[in-house]
C-alpha cells in the first residue's frame, strides 16, 4: 500500500457521511462472542423470569387450595357434621322428653334438647359464614335452616299440647311430635345436611385434596425450566472460562446456588402443605366417624301407648325412627369437633413464599445480568 493511500486514512478528518459509513461497517461486523454473550444474557434472564413466574403460579395455586380446603371447606364440613349430630340427638331427646314416663327424665331431656338445638343452630350459622361450598350447597344450608325454624315451631307446639290435661289436646301434641320428627328424618333437615356434607362439601374437599397443584407433577412446571436454566448456567461458566480465561464467574455461580436453593425451598413447602392437607382430610374423616350414631331401640313400651305407636310406625318405616338413635356423650363429641376444627384452621401457611419467590426472582435476574455484563464490558474493551 502507498503512503499516499495510508495518508488518507491517518490524516484526513472524517466527514459526517464517512463517519456514519464507518459505524455501519463496524456494526455489520457482529462478532460471534458478542452474539453468544447477548444470547446467554437473555437466556438466563428469560429463564429466571420463567422459573420464578411458574413457581409463583404453582405455589400460589397450591397455597390457595390448601387455604380453601382447610380454612373453609373443612371448617364447613365439620360444622355441618356437628350440626347433623346435634340435631339427631336433639330430636331423640325431644321425643324422649315428651313420651317419657319419668317427669324428672323428661325435664333433663328437655334441657338437653334445647342445648343441642342451640348448638346445631350455631354450627349451621358458622357453616354459612365459612363460605366453604358453592351456591348449590348454600341452598341446602338455607333449606335446612328454614326447615329448622318450622321444626322448632312444631316442637314448641307439641310441648304446649302435651302440657294440657285434656287427652285430645295431648293427641295433637303427639301428632306435632311425629310431624317434627318426620321433618327432621324423612326427606327433610337431615337429608339436606347429608347432601351438603356428603355430596357438596366432602366432594369439594376430596377434589381439593387431590388437587393437581399439590402433586409432584405440578412441580415439573417450574422444575423443568429450572433444570434448563441450570444447564444454561453451566454452559455459560464453561464458555466464559474458555473465552475470557476466568476460572469462575462468581455472579453466575451465586445465581446457580440461589436457583438450587429456590428449587429446594419450593419442593419442601409444597411437600409440607400437601402433608398438612392430608392431615386435615384425615381429621375430618375421624370426626365424621365419631358422629356416626348407632340406633338403639327405645325402652320397652309397656303401658306407654305413645311409645308403642312410635315403635309401630318405625317398624312400618312410615317415619324416620329418630327417637331410636342413641345419645352419645355430648361433652366429648363437642370437644372433639372443636379440636379438629382448630387443627384444620391452623393449617394454611405459605412459609413466606409471597415475598421469597419474587425476591429470589429479582436476585436471579440481577445476578444473571451482572455476570454477563462484566464480560460484555471486557469484550468491548478488547474490541476497541
Amino acid at each position, binding site marked *: 500500500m502507498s503512503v499516499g493511500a495510508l495518508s488518507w486514512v491517518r490524516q484526513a478528518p472524517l466527514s459526517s457521511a464517512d463517519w456514519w459509513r464507518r459505524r455501519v461497517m463496524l456494526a455489520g461486523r457482529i462478532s460471534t462472542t458478542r452474539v453468544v454473550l447477548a444470547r446467554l444474557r437473555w437466556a438466563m434472564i428469560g429463564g429466571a423470569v420463567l422459573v420464578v413466574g411458574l413457581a409463583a403460579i404453582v405455589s400460589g395455586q397450591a397455597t390457595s387450595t390448601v387455604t380453601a380446603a382447610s380454612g373453609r371447606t373443612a371448617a364447613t364440613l365439620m360444622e355441618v357434621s356437628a350440626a347433623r349430630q346435634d340435631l339427631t340427638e336433639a330430636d331423640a331427646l325431644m321425643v324422649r322428653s315428651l313420651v317419657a314416663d319419668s317427669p324428672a327424665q323428661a325435664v333433663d331431656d328437655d334441657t338437653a334438647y334445647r342445648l343441642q338445638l342451640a348448638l346445631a343452630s350455631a354450627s349451621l350459622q358458622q357453616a354459612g359464614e365459612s363460605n366453604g361450598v358453592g351456591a*348449590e350447597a348454600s341452598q341446602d344450608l338455607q*333449606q335446612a335452616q328454614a*326447615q329448622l325454624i*318450622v321444626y322448632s315451631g312444631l316442637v314448641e307446639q307439641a310441648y304446649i299440647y302435651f302440657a294440657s290435661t285434656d287427652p285430645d289436646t295431648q*293427641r*295433637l301434641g303427639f*301428632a306435632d311430635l311425629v310431624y317434627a320428627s318426620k*321433618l327432621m328424618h324423612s326427606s*327433610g333437615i337431615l337429608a339436606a345436611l347429608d347432601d351438603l356434607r356428603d355430596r357438596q362439601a366432602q366432594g369439594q374437599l376430596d377434589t381439593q385434596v387431590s388437587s393437581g397443584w399439590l402433586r409432584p407433577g405440578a412441580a415439573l412446571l417450574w422444575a423443568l425450566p429450572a433444570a434448563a436454566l441450570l444447564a444454561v448456567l453451566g454452559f455459560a461458566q464453561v464458555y466464559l472460562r474458555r473465552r475470557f480465561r476466568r476460572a469462575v464467574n462468581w455472579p453466575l455461580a451465586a445465581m446457580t446456588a440461589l436457583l438450587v436453593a429456590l428449587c429446594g425451598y419450593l419442593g419442601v413447602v409444597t411437600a409440607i402443605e400437601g402433608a398438612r392437607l392430608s392431615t386435615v382430610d384425615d381429621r375430618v374423616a375421624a370426626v365424621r366417624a365419631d358422629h356416626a350414631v348407632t340406633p338403639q331401640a327405645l325402652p320397652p313400651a309397656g303401658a306407654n301407648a305413645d311409645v308403642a305407636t312410635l315403635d309401630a310406625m318405625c317398624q312400618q318405616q312410615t317415619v324416620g325412627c329418630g327417637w331410636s338413635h342413641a345419645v352419645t356423650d355430648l361433652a366429648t363429641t363437642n370437644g372433639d369437633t372443636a379440636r379438629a376444627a382448630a387443627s384444620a384452621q391452623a393449617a394454611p401457611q405459605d412459609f413466606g413464599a409471597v415475598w421469597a419467590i419474587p425476591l429470589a426472582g429479582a436476585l436471579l435476574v440481577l445476578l444473571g445480568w451482572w455476570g454477563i455484563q462484566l464480560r460484555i464490558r471486557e469484550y468491548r474493551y478488547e474490541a476497541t
Partner: protein
Amino acid sequence: MIPGKSIAGRLVFALLLVACGLGPVACAGVGCDRSLTVIGNWSDGEAAAFGQVLAAFEAQTGCVANYHGSQSLDQELRSDVQASNPPDVAIVSRPSDVVYYADSGALQPFTLTGAQSDAIRRYPVPWQALESQLRPQHDAHPGALYAIVFKADLKSAVWYDPLVMAHLGAAWTGPPATWAELGALSAAIGATGGTPWCLGMEATPNSGWPGTDWIEDILLHQSGVSAYQDWVNGTLPWSSPAVRQAWTTWRSIIMAGQPTQGGVPAALLTNVNDTGKSLFARPVGCYLDHKASFIMSDYRADTLPDGRHPAPLADYRFFPFPTFPGEPGNVSEVSADFATLFRQSSAATKLLNFLASDQAQGIWPGLPAGSAFSVDTTAGPHYSDPVKQQVAARLTRPDATLCFDGSDQMPIALSTAFNEAVLRFLIDPNRLDELLAQLDQVSRTAHDPNNPNNVGDPTFHCGH
C-alpha cells in the same frame, strides 16, 4: 423469509386460535349469562319429571338451570327474599304469594316473546280470568306478566277403585252425582263394616291441608261461588252459618258409619300421599279418597297385592265432587303451579318463555307416570290414559267456573291457622265454635291494612 408474509401469517394463525377457542363458548349458549337457580316444592318423582323439562331447556338453549326442591318452600323463599338472595325462577303454588311478592317488588315482570307471546290467550277463558289476578295491586307494568301457569290440578275429585266398589253390590249404582247420593254411599259402606273415607292429614310442614281442601270444596258447592269468594277475601266470617255448615258437613260425611281406619288419631299421622295404600290394600282399607289429580302419580307408585302397580281406569277412577241442591253445574276447585321471575336476566327470560312453550307444556303431561296437566289448549300434550284425559277435559272446559284453592288465596298466617284448626277440629269437633272464633281473629289481623306484614290485600275471584 419475507417479514411481511411472516407477520401476516402469524396474525392469521393467532386469529384462528382465538376463533377456535371462542367458538365452542359462543355455540354453548348465546345470551346465557349465568346458570339459573330454580326453586319449587317438588321432590322425588315430581322433581325428576321437572328435571326432564329443564333438560330439554338446556338442550335447546345451552343455558344451565339447577332445580332445588324444598318441602318448606314458603319459609325458604321468604328467607331468601329477605336476605336479598332470591332464586332466579320460583315455582309458586299459592296465588296469594304471587301477589304478595309482586306487591313487595320482589317479583319481576316479564314478557313472553315470539311464539309464546300469545301463550296466555291460549288458556281457556276461566284460566285467563284466574291468571289476570296474578299481578300487584299497583301495577306499574300493565302489559307484562308476573306469572304463567306451568301446570294445573283438579281438586274437586273423589277417587275410587272400581273393582272394590263393584263388590259393594246394590250399594254401588255408579258414581254419585249429588251430595245426598254420596252420603248414602258413605253410610252404606259404613254399614258393611268398611271405612268409607281415606284420610291422611300429615303433610309436614303444612299438615292439615287435606282437610282444608275438603271444607273448601264443600263450601264452594254447598253455598255457591259468591259465598266462596267472599270467604276467601275475608268478607264472609269464619263463624258465619255458611262456613260453619261446611265444617259440620265435612265431619258428618267422614264419620258416616265406621270411623276412618285407625280412628281420627291415625288420620292425623297418615301421610297425605299414603292414602292410596289403604285404597289398594286387600282387604281394602278405605273406599273413597278426596284428593287432587296429582295423587295419580302416587297411586301408580303403589303396589297391589298381586305385585302390579295400579293402572288408570282399571284400578282407579274419579268422579267429580257431587253437587248440592240448587248448585249450577261445572264448578270445580283447582290449583296450579306458577312460574315466576325473581331475578331479571336473559337466561331467566329464556326459561320462562320455554316453560310457556308447547314443547315444555307437553313434556311432563306426556309422561305416563306423571300427573301434570297443561291449561294451554293448543299445546296438545298427549295424555296417556283416559283418566288423565277426563281430568284435562274438566280443567280446560271454556264454560266451567274454576276457583283456586281457598287457603292458597289467603294470607299465609291465616292459611297456617286454617291447617291447624282442621287438625284440632278432627280431634275435638265440640270446639268448632271456639276454633272459628280464633280463625276470625286471625283473619281480621291478616286483612288489616295497618298490619305491616300485609303488603297488599288482594281480592280474588273465580274464573269463568
